[in-house]
């Protein structure tokens, strides 16, 4: 059916967007062992900065400059915040990034207020790329797909083909040895944190116009990004990619088709209690797949953590 | 009489690398047994296999005739085996007294008790104080363990290990990184607190080994090449060749 193709494309967009966030997060995690709760907040900052820049210099300059600003901010957070908290252990680090997430949200509201910003897609991309059975695919979505894939390939290239990438990969596994070889590991950490947050910034820049630029945007996406890298396996870039696409498609398809729990239960051989509105199970019987689409990733995560605690592609326990 | 600890064809691989390549060893009750060998011979791995930290790949470990396969560290501990660690492994934020008291709780039958106050049990407090006295840390009783000097932490480590009254005590390099005077102090301590118990230790300091052990096993590349009294091992040509060579000349 044509709709399947359309949904595949939509799911791909969602998944790749998620991947841009989770790639940075998982890089940071595998390097420093820190789950950055504030990662989605940098995504939000990316969108807001880009919006502000676009008012003066247009969308494209925003796409160029905003991620850089976010990256510098991220590096600053690592240098002056996280490095300090590091000495207290992982739990305080997690709490620190949690507090940072709260603070950034408040800061954004302080500066830009609480309403949604009129951040829009550039006019040059405001046309329909093509249509499938009446469903139009906006050109901007194609643009998003290209940007995400370009970034993924770039990242892969840097990590596997360049000297810097080699050092980073080595520092992931043997930080002590790399340090002994004369590399400045704290600097690498700062750099990775900066790049990771800049990636989140890029995601914010290109997602802001479609998903909305408002103070709650980090909160809405934040925990899903976590879920993604936990499902993919903490620290695994491929895991992050697979999990992102998986979540993108699962949520898209379960929203796009009205699968009903009633059918499933009947198929399993249960009889519908009558009258249904008087039964304690009425809510279970009336569940449809779009209703629970957004909690499916959480269910998946809990199941994964129970049965495969290191995730789909994880090599080690967190 | 069954041996305190019996290893039978024990093997352990990490991936393709075989670290322990078939160890057979029997340690009798009340014996003081030292395991020596060059770095990377697999001594610590052997310890970790016995105490349940890692599962073995092949073979059997029996304590007092009971198989330890698949048992978790805490289960093995409850059967009467207690160990110390090469890198000091204590509860740094808790007081010295607390450290020792926690190691007494299970053996005194408190288990997961949440209805009685630890402070109310005279037996527990006295038992803890007795061990503190034995390891000479009474004066440090209420300090956080993390602020003790290195030697004191090592002493505390041994205190925690023996507190539970286990009859098989395993010490992993108890004198690592110590000065001469500190080493002497620890050796005396070990001798005193393991009186009447089975002791298995990994040690690099040959002075300590020959001073304490009744039996010595030499582990090289995951295999035991010799077991015997200190004199026998010292005289064993294989040992001389494989490991002791120069090291022995020094002592």
């Amino acid at each position, binding site marked *: 059916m044509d709709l399947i193709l359309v949904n595949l494309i939509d799911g791909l967009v969602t998944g790749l967007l998620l991947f841009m966030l989770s790639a940075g997060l998982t890089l940071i995690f595998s390097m420093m062992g820190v789950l950055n709760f504030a990662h989605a907040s940098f995504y939000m900052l990316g969108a807001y900065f880009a919006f502000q820049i676009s008012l003066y210099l247009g969308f494209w300059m925003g796409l160029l400059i905003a991620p850089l600003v976010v990256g510098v901010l991220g590096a600053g957070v690592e240098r002056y915040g996280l490095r300090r908290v590091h000495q207290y252990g992982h739990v305080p680090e997690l709490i620190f990034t949690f507090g940072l997430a709260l603070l950034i949200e408040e800061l954004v509201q302080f500066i830009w207020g609480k309403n949604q910003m009129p951040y829009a897609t550039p006019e040059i991309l405001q046309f329909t790329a093509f249509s499938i059975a009446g469903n139009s695919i906006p050109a901007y979505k194609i643009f998003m797909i290209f940007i995400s894939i370009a970034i993924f390939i770039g990242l892969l290239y840097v990590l596997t083909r360049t000297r810097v990438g080699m050092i980073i990969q080595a520092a992931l596994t043997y930080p002590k040895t790399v340090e002994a070889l004369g590399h400045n590991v704290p600097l690498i950490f700062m750099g990775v944190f900066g790049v990771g947050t800049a990636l989140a910034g890029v995601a914010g820049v290109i997602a802001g116009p479609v998903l909305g630029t408002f103070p709650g945007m980090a909160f809405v996406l934040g925990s899903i990004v976590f879920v993604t890298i936990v499902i993919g396996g903490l620290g695994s870039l491929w895991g992050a990619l697979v999990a992102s696409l998986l979540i993108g498609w699962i949520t898209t398809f379960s929203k796009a088709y009205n699968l009903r729990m009633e059918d499933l239960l009947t198929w399993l051989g249960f009889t519908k209690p009558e009258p249904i509105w008087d039964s304690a199970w009425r809510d279970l019987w009336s569940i449809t797949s779009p209703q629970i689409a957004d909690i499916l990733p959480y269910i998946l995560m809990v199941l994964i953590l129970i049965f495969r605690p290191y995730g789909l592609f994880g090599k080690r326990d967190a | 009489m069954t041996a305190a600890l019996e290893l039978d064809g024990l093997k352990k691989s990490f991936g393709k690398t075989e670290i322990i390549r078939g160890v057979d060893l029997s340690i009798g009750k009340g014996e003081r047994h030292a395991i020596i060998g060059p770095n990377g011979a697999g001594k610590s791995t052997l310890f970790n296999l016995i105490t349940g930290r890692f599962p073995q790949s092949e073979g059997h470990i029996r304590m007092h005739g009971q198989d330890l396969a698949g048992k978790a560290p805490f289960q093995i501990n409850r059967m009467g085996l207690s160990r110390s660690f090469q890198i000091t492994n204590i509860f740094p934020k808790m007081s010295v007294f607390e450290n020792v008291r926690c190691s007494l709780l299970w053996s005194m039958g408190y288990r997961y008790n949440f209805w009685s106050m630890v402070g109310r049990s005279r037996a527990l407090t006295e038992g803890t104080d007795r061990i503190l006295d034995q390891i000479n840390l*009474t004066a440090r009783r209420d300090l956080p363990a993390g602020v003790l000097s290195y030697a004191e932490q090592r002493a505390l480590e041994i205190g925690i290990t023996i507190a539970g009254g286990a009859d098989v005590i395993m010490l992993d390099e108890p004198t690592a990184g110590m000065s001469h005077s500190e080493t002497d102090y620890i050796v005396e301590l070990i001798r005193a607190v393991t009186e009447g118990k089975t002791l298995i230790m990994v040690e690099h300091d040959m002075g300590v080994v020959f001073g304490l052990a009744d039996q010595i096993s030499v582990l090289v590349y995951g295999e035991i090449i010799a077991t015997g009294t200190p004199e026998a091992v010292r005289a064993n040509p294989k040992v001389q060749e494989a490991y002791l060579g120069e090291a022995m000349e020094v002592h």
Partner: protein
Amino acid sequence: MTDQLTTDPTKPAQRIGAGSLTVPLIPWVLAAALLMVLPFIFTANSAITIMNQMAITIIFALAYNMLLGQGGMLSFGHAVYAGVGGFACVHIMNMDDFFAQIPLPLLPIFGGLMGMGLATIVGAFSTRKAGTVFAMISLGVGELIAACSVIIVAFFGGEEGISGDRTYGMPFFGVEFLQQIEVYYLIAAWLLISAALMYLYSRTPLGRMANAVRDNPERAEFLGYSARWVRFFSFVASGFFAGVAGALFAINYEILTEENLNTTQSGLILLATFLGGVGFFFGPILGAIVFTLVQTVLSLQTELWAFYLGIVFVVTVMFFPGGLAGLLMMHVPAMRLGKLGRLGVPYLKTLGSGAIGCLGAAGLIEMTFHLRHASAGDHSMTLFWITFDSHTILPWIVAIAVTFVGLGIARRTAPALAEAWNEANTPDGAPR
């Protein structure tokens, strides 16, 4: 230096906490007395409402600290245990026949059991690991149950929640709990009971082992304890007291909604607990008090309360990981030495001026905010009981001056404070 800190074992009076055989009674008696007289000091109904809220938060924060502080488990979803306990109690309130049989003061027991039941189920798989994995599972389960609350309408009542009426219960010695003050004493009693139980729990073998497992789970395993079971029992106990807090919430507000379960609520209790300090038993109590005041009182004064709270929280994590309680307890050695008084003047100089500087900075923030977001033409704003025009230069100069002078003096006097601090923590005659 360390020698100086060693206590003399021959003097049992000097033995702190761990070794003492008795549980100190005096603080508890004082707390009970304070709880008794508070309503006579703050007579307003709204003050009582805030105190009720505070007491509930204290119980919840203490329960949370059983995990975070004592067990080393960071949970991002603990609100669900309190929430589910509360929901269960509202359902009991709505069971007319049954509810009329039981006196209201016993209701929290049911809430506690419900919270405990849920914690038993979740804990069965979530406590296998501490640290990041536990935190993630708690987040996932928390989100899941919060999301279910709008789907499972039969139990959670959907978005608008469910409500009941506490006065339909069996009167308790003639008290029908019509008035806030009656509810206050009920909550206060439960606060004392729960706090005492949680304190005593921390003194039991299991409570001590929770600390041991927090510090070094592997070592604890080699002492005969399964780290997982120790965590599990802490988790279940914490679930019980969280449920009690939820039940008291149900009694006080007579309504429970999705927000009692969601991650925001879980985050807030983490915030309150950590601000107070996780290292000491009384830390969460302090945190809950301060936090409730900020939430209910400061939010009346400024729209930016959450912004300030965020700053304070991040600063706390970065510079004072011990929280408020940690800061207070830093003064114990000086107090032992009887030299606490010597810190008074330097404190006044540095912290006093620092506080003034911070108020100045807050003033600047408020003025910036007013300039940016107030409706156009609305130039007048009120700050610290002074009304002025935010579009004139004078208030800005004053605020900037106050900020810089305040912080400047604090900076200048900081070395003197550090000096006095060292002095106060060194026994007389000790070599420096």
